């Protein structure tokens, strides 16, 4: 039997309306409270910014983390995981019991967010593409890579590769079959290795969807680097503030946020009634889904750019503002990922661990987890889950607004501090309330 989805059966109940309202009110209050606090302090001549922006040095830990042995350890771990992927991709069965679906859509795609938030740039440390490229570089000997990665491309390629993954996960109807997923992963790896060999590591930093996503989320962790490359501890907001504007950064955060919004909306009854209308053919419905996947990031980007550009009244040109303030969307994305995927990560993640112990479906038990029952903790504790969801969205929102204020105060002239920030605030509240509404409506 071939199952219609690779992973995930049960979905969460919608968020109760009172939670949505409480969350929206809180977001609004917190936003204006922050506005009052920051502008008051800025008007009093205080420097509003991150405390200890340079970070607290941790030289001993830094020596361990930067040692060749530590780097090699995580590269070996990454290659072992990669070898397991290759094994199940070619020797595993083409049904939902193959752990490759959960490993790709749950462990990798969802899991890299919490791991990066806690440990920093994890994907960079274990990326098999990076290890293979490093091997090729070593074989070639010394010297810089044959081509230079054009700096003006910035993160634009990553916005496309991220969209390509989202398309595979959310739109492509046969994403739960082994062949297409294997092909996607193989093409991904081939492109990354080729690009890495030609352009050097910078290509992976700018184009690898998993590495870009992970490194972006790692800006909210406490692990930072000084400009000299030394390991420091920073507050999450201080770390986020080190994310400098680059071409395509707005595109990347818009794609991340827009595709999660699409993921929430595509299963809502309203959306299903539209795309499954008997008067619409299957091909048309597929086209609508494809358009929606592109339209929602564009909508997010449009809304965000309008809100931030209306803010600009200083020496900084308006067109530079969206990129300047783009870091403020990172905590909003992180909060929404937690809210949207927590129970899915728990249940499907555990189910994948169960399947991973017996990847060939022959009754093996490699990791001792083959008989592990899947815990439905969050399904039974609906109230707790709802509280966590609203809290995650609000915390993400508050961090985002705070980060935006810090940047806005750096770029806005004093006389426009309050009025100048209002459009920005409305944009952020709009995102948060919209996100809460989707958790309610889906």
């Amino acid at each position, binding site marked *: 039997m071939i199952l*219609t989805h690779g992973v995930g059966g*049960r*979905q*969460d109940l919608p968020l109760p309306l*009172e939670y949505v309202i*409480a969350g929206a009110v809180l977001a609004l209050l*917190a936003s204006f409270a922050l506005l009052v606090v920051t502008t008051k302090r800025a008007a009093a001549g205080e420097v509003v910014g991150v405390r200890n922006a340079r970070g607290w040095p941790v030289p001993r830990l830094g020596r361990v983390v930067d040692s060749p042995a530590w780097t090699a350890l995580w590269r070996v771990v990454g290659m072992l995981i990669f070898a397991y992927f290759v094994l199940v991709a070619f020797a595993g069965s083409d049904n939902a019991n193959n752990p490759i679906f959960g490993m790709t859509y749950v462990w990798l795609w969802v899991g890299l967010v919490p791991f990066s938030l806690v440990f920093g740039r994890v994907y960079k440390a274990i990326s098999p593409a990076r290890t293979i490229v490093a091997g090729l570089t070593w074989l070639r000997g010394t010297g810089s890579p044959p081509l230079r990665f054009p700096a003006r491309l910035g993160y634009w390629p990553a916005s496309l590769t991220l969209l390509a993954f989202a398309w595979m996960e959310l739109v492509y109807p046969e994403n739960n079959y082994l062949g297409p997923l294997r092909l996607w992963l193989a093409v991904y790896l081939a492109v990354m290795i080729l690009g890495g060999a030609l352009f050097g590591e910078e290509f992976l930093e700018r184009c690898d969807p998993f590495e870009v996503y992970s490194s972006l989320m790692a800006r909210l962790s406490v692990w930072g680097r000084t400009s000299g490359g030394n390991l420091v501890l920073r507050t999450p907001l201080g770390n986020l503030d080190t994310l400098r504007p680059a071409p395509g950064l707005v595109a990347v955060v818009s794609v991340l946020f827009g595709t999660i919004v699409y993921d929430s909306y595509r299963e809502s009854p309203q959306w*299903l009634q539209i795309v499954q209308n008997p008067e619409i053919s299957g091909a048309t419905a597929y086209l609508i889904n494809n358009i929606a996947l592109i339209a929602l990031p564009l909508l997010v980007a449009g809304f965000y750019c309008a809100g931030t550009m209306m803010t600009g009244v200083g020496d900084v040109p308006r067109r530079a503002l969206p990129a300047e303030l783009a870091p403020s969307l990172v905590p909003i994305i992180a909060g929404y990922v937690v809210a949207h995927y927590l129970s899915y990560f728990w249940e499907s993640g555990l189910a994948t661990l169960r399947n991973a112990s017996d990847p060939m479906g022959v009754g093996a038990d490699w990791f001792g987890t083959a008989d592990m029952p899947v815990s439905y903790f969050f399904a039974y504790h*609906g109230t707790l889950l709802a509280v966590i969801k609203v809290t995650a969205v609000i915390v993400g929102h508050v961090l985002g607004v705070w980060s935006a204020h810090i940047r806005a105060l750096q770029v806005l002239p004093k006389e426009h501090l309050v009025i100048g920030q209002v459009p920005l605030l409305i944009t952020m509240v709009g995102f948060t309330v919209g996100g809460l509404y989707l958790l309610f409506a889906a």
Partner: protein
Amino acid sequence: MRLTARIIAVVAAICGIASVATACGNDVATEPSNDSNPVVVQINFSGDSVDPHGTKIEVPVGHSVELDVTADAAGEVHVHSDPEQSAAYGVGTTRISLGAFEIPGQYEVESHTLGKTIVTLEVQ
């Protein structure tokens, strides 16, 4: 700085009130299962279309669900429960019993043949 502390206190108080206010009466009651009256869902297949196509059906926890399928061609429905279930139906009327749903959540019932979501069972 004191202003910050005051604002944090206000926000914390609102959070507290909100969580207390919402914590009452929203938990799932763990009554003994009672499936004496199963929830019956009427499903009509004709050609490439299916009715309903995406509506929500509320199912109390512990109740079983039966699908009353009328079709002009044989096919298969698929339920995203754990374990996942699929059931075939033939031309004419077929009654499919899905058993009791004990875990709160939303479960999609799909037509495997058409690739469409027929109903979403909202178990709570």
